[in-house]
């Protein structure tokens, strides 16, 4: 059902956890199947220095969370904004058709976290 890449990221997820006083936090929940994903960013000089996630969901949901955090770690905010759901799924070697909606979670949560970071920056100004 899942590719080896998916299973690897599922069994050994990268960047699980939380960041205290994160620069930005984004949470999305897909009401349809009850999965929830939260991403924490630590941003310094416009660069994502650290990223953590917590996810309640299926194997695909956890693997996409892990892969998304891997893909943006060390990237600039602008680069991170370019990450698409499809890119995450592709990086995992594809997802089963009925699981494509899970891959929408990760990039969406990330974009929300970046929006939260930007809002916080604006508030500081």
């Amino acid at each position, binding site marked *: 059902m899942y590719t080896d890449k998916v*299973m690897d990221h*599922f069994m050994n997820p990268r960047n699980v956890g939380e960041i205290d006083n994160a620069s930005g936090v984004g949470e999305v929940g897909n009401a349809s*199947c009850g999965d*929830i*994903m939260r991403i924490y960013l630590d941003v310094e000089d416009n660069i994502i220095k650290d990223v953590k996630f*917590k996810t*309640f969901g*299926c194997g695909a949901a956890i693997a996409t969370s892990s892969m998304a955090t891997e893909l943006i770690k060390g990237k600039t905010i602008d680069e991170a904004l370019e990450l698409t759901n499809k890119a995450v799924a592709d990086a995992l070697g594809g997802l089963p058709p009925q699981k494509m909606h899970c891959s929408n979670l990760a990039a969406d949560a990330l974009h929300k976290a970046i929006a939260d970071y930007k809002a916080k920056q604006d508030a500081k100004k």
Partner: protein
Amino acid sequence: MRRVYLDHSATTPVHPGVIEAMVDCMQNHFGNPSSVHSFGREAKKLLEEARANVAHLIGARPEEIIFTSGGTEADNLTIFGVARAMRKKGNHVITSATEHHAVLDACQALTKEGFEVTVLPVDETGMVRVEDVKAALKPETVLVTIMHANNEVGTINPIKEITQLVKAHGAIMHTDAVQTVGKIPVDVNDLGVDLMSLSSHKIYGPKGVGALYIRKGTKLFPLSHGGGQERKRRPGTENLPGIVGFGKAAEIMARELPEEMGRMGRLRQRLIEGLLAIPEVQLNGHPTERIPINVNVSIKYIEGESLLLMLDMKGIAASSGSACTSGSLDPSHVLLAMGICHEVAHGSLRLTLGRDNTEEDIEYVLDVLPQIVERLRAMSPLYANKEG
């Protein structure tokens, strides 16, 4: 790696004696039971022996058993067959919210033919209330179909009491006994039902074969047409190797049931105790009125599919009512009907025992599971919320 199969309500391994009987049938008696010659007569003999064995398992007479391609077909044949045959008498059918999709979806399809279907609720243990059946019976009611035990939570319905009401009312009573036959004593005359669905692959027989018990005198239209096989109720060349395997499985089940029932019950108790020792785990279903092979728990703050995958990596095969495993967007209709909320239903885990399981298997699961639960909870934003 140790492999522990705990998904016997999904399907069972085929008993070695069943395989042997099927191979003998295919190697030595491959004829078409309808043929006049000796090859045909030998096949016919095997067919009727199998029918007698299946009948015996549920206290029926051989001529009241017809073979189908499985439980799904037996359910559909009943629902369409009886409803259509009784159309002139009435157009109301009663079923329950926790039925298998073969029953629920067939009833749903009946509404397009002008039938009205009442779907009874269940209580929080998953049981149909006898008084609800009583209240739902109408002059137009022609068929009531309530499952004997549920496949997800194992709750056993009070079919005998329900049947008494239904028969007194003059309607026809069907029960889907796919999950009880071979696991607890089942007798068509004790229960009093008019029709009963069975499936071979849940009792260590092969997949692709089932049976419908039809009490003498019950009217039923066939679902399909063709040769006159199975008293014109189910045409098509008989699935002889499958039927022979089913018959053998029925024979073995009848013999082993009394002892296995007790053993399953004991393994089940140990498993439930061990699971409830994990924090924030709840038992779903009825505490006592459940088939002895069924354990269903919800492990809060985690999602069932990830749990199944991690168990699978440890060689443990289980199932879940999580939406993520269903291919649809909703979690198990059974758990929801019992009033369990979406989140808790997502974290459901079903472990169903079988004749190959040992105490060591149970201890292995109880050893492995807490670590997996801990790992998944550590990843879960819901668990974090709760702690924070």
